[in-house]
Every structure is written in structure tokens, then in C-alpha cells.
């Protein structure tokens, strides 16, 4: 059948009364079905491997080459001088980061990694901007959370009967 042919454009819907009854019946059927929203206060979304969340920094691996600061498109990474350290080290501003992962790619010694953690609350804007030492300490916390989540991680699975179903994923 061609587009715009008469038989398509002339197709009639159900009559007025039947149309209303069908709409109401459809809503009533929906009402009887269980909700399929994820209980987000009690569980969290499982992330796929390779998810680009916040960047974690391993201070001891870094060689201070500044490549990360050069590649960062949003200037979230800047090099700092750390007292008692003769090399310069990267600092990180989560507020500027666009989670592109370029810094983790370019780092020659894998001192930077993407994590699966993304949604975080910060008390104020300055606390989102970390110097190298703060970043390294914060990264330890993020890595621990990645290994031992506080809430069960759930993954959405398409279910032909219910729409969506959630199954638990081990960390």
C-alpha cells in the first residue's frame, strides 16, 4: 500500500462512545499492573563496564608529564605544585569535567581511570575543585565505593509481560 493512499487516510477510528470506553478500559488495565519504576532510594542503577563516571587518580603511579592537563577539553585538570614533591601533579575540578575520558586514555602510566560512579553531592562549589592530594584521597573513597556499594545494584531487563524487570548485579 502506498503512503497517502485513500484506504489509509480514510480509516475510521472506533465510534465516540466505544472510543471513550476503550480509553477508560485501557487506563483501568494499566491501574491493575504493578509499577515498574526503580526504587532509587533503596537501590542504584548497575553501570555497564567501561562506563565513564568521575575520574580517579593514583598518585603513586603518576610521572607528572602534564599530558592529561593538555588534552582535557574543558580544563578540568590543571597542574599543581605540591609542597615536598619535585614534580608537578594534576588537580581535578569535577564541576568542569564533561566525563569524556580523554585524560584516562592519554595517561601513559594509567594513573587516571574512569569509574562507574557519577552522581555525587558536594557541599559547595569550591569543594568540587580538588588539588592533587585531595583528589588522590577522594579517589580512594570512590574506588572503595565501586567495590562495595552501599545499596544493591539493579539492572533493568526488558520483560515481555511486565515491561521492565530489575535483577540484582554483584559488584
Amino acid at each position, binding site marked *: 500500500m502506498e503512503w497517502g493512499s485513500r484506504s489509509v487516510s480514510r480509516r475510521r477510528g472506533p465510534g465516540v462512545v466505544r472510543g471513550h470506553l476503550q*480509553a*477508560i478500559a*485501557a*487506563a483501568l488495565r*494499566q*491501574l491493575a*499492573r504493578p*509499577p*515498574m*519504576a526503580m*526504587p532509587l*532510594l533503596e537501590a542504584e542503577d548497575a553501570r555497564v563496564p567501561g562506563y565513564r563516571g568521575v575520574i580517579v587518580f593514583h598518585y603513586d603511579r603518576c610521572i607528572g608529564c602534564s599530558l592529561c592537563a593538555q588534552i582535557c577539553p574543558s580544563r578540568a585538570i590543571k597542574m599543581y605544585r605540591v609542597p615536598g614533591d619535585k614534580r608537578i601533579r594534576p588537580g581535578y575540578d569535577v564541576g568542569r569535567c564533561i566525563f569524556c575520558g580523554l585524560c584516562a586514555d592519554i595517561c601513559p602510566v594509567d594513573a587516571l581511570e574512569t569509574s562507574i560512579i557519577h552522581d555525587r553531592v558536594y557541599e559547595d562549589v569550591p569543594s568540587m575543585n580538588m588539588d592533587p592530594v585531595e583528589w588522590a584521597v577522594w579517589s580512594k573513597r570512590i574506588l572503595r565505593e565501586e567495590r562495595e556499594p552501599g545499596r544493591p545494584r539493579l539492572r533493568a531487563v526488558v520483560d515481555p509481560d511486565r*515491561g521492565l524487570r530489575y535483577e540484582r548485579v554483584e559488584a
Partner: protein
Amino acid sequence: MADPVAWLAGLLGVPVWLARSVFAPLVYPGLLAFTVVALFIIWAERKITARVQMRVGPYYVSPRLGGALQLLADGVRIAFQEVIIPRQVERYSFILAPVLGFAVTAMALAVVPGGPGVYGFRSSVGLLVAYALLGLAPLLVVVMGWAANNKFTQIGAAREILVSVAGEVTLLASLLAAAMMYGTMDLVEIVEAQAAAGVPGIVANPVAALLFFIAALLIADRVPFDLVLGEQEIVQGPYTEYSGVLFALTMALDYLKLYILMMLFADVFLGGWMPFSDPLLGSAAVFAKTVALMLAAVFLRSVYARMRLDQVASMFWSKLFPLALIAFVLSAAVHPLYGGVLAG
């Protein structure tokens, strides 16, 4: 206990008429009952809409009660919220319009009987009194929209003028058809006529009942006729600039209209306290019918989308108005069913 109001009056040592005219508007079917109903209905509305859309709805305020206390929490928040009065508004009309609108509409609760003998006062034209009091609210809504001096409120007020005329004509037509059918405008007599004939009005004249229900949805700003509020288009229509307690009043105004109209529907078309004649059981019957009707009205929110202004106007004037004429013919035909009862 034949008459709880009379018993209460005896207990307090006041005349019965005084107890009646205080009890009905303030306790049941008045403001106290309305507050409980409004808290329940708004929660039910959110819960029903959520379930139809496969969400959970209010939950975390009281997980074991399914979030039923959410509305109390919202109420506390609204009660402590600052009432902001923008600089460009006309101060006194802005503050007084919602208060007056709510008060005038609530006065209708004195006429609508909530059970056998449970009414503020009885009048031979009770139906018209209730209609007239409900008809005053749109004027105050227009005042709100004008006083707030904002383009959204003014668009909302203009829409209120256009749709409330259409809705009220239809409502009046269905009420007059009902009055013609029962041969009286006294709400108590209307219920008694149905009880005596044993046939509720909705069976005798389904057309008038349908018209009343549709017009009630429009007057109470329910979906699909909520274009006065039109959240996605004009923020909150005439109520846009209100905050805090005044906002709560504007919101309660629409639910109050719905409550009164559905109680009228229960009295006029569903036989009021019909299976019972005891004041307590009868009041419970009217109350249950009212709440069931309100639940049906809020459920429709998840079925329909909002209609456009021209669609509403053409639906009410060119489809429902001719139906009203059929309702009149039907009323004339079924009149003997009730007319004989009252005469005898």
C-alpha cells in the same frame, strides 16, 4: 439516635436550627469533612495517575501507608511558606480574591444535604441557591487573574470567562431537567422523591446525569477541561502568582467545587441517602457516593489529554447543548414516575 444534630443541640443547650446551621457548613458536609476528603483525594489522584503510568507515586513520607501522609507534609510546608506578593499586583484584590472565592463557594455546603436532616438550611429553591453560589467563583477567579497583572494569569482569566459560561449553561440545563423531572427544586424533596419511587435519577434520566458530570468536570477544572490552569502552557493560569497559604486556597477552591458538585450529583442523580433513612447511615451513604464520584473524576485525569479552547467551546455549545434538549424531553416523559409520589 434519630437525629444526631438535634442530640448535639440538646447536649449543648442551643436551639436545633442554630446547631444545624453551624454543624453543616463547618463539620459535615462542610469544611472539616472537605479537608479530610481533599487530603485523601489529592493523594489518591497522585497515586492513581502514578499507577496508570507505571510509577509508584507518593511513597517515602510514609512507606507503610503508601505515602498517604505526603499531603500532610506538603500542607505543613505550604503553611510555613512565605506568601510572596509581587510588586506589580493590585494588593487588596490579589489577597482577598482567593479568600472570598473559597468562602463563597464553601457557603454552598450549607444548602447541599449531606444526609437525612444534615443540612444548614432547607429552601424550596435549594438547587438554584447551590448553583448560584458555585457560579460566583468564576468572577473571583477573573479578579485573581486581573489583580495578579501577569500575562499568564490574564490568559487564564480570559479562558475562565469563555469556558465557565459554556460549562454553567450546560450545568444549569441538566439541573433544570432534573428539577422538571422531580417537580421540585428542594434538594431534600428531590432525594425523598427518588427514595419513594425507588429509582435513582441517573436511571430515569441518564442524559441529564451525563451532562451534569461533564459540566462538573469543566467547572472544577478537571482534565480534560483544565485549560484554565493549563500547566504546560500558562504555568497555573489565574493562580500563577500565588504562593503559600493563598496558593493552598486556590488549589483547595477547585477541589471544593468538585466536592460540592459531586455531592450534588449524589443527591440529585444517585438518590442521596437512598437505601437508608437513618441519619448516620444515610450520611455515610452520601459521603461514600461523593468520594466514589470524586475518585472517578480524578481517575479521568490519566485517561484524557487537555482539550483546546475551541474544542471545548464547540463541544459544549454544539454537542452537549442539543443533548440538554433531549434531557428535557426525557424529563417530561419520566415525570409521572416522581410526580405522583410527591402529590401522594
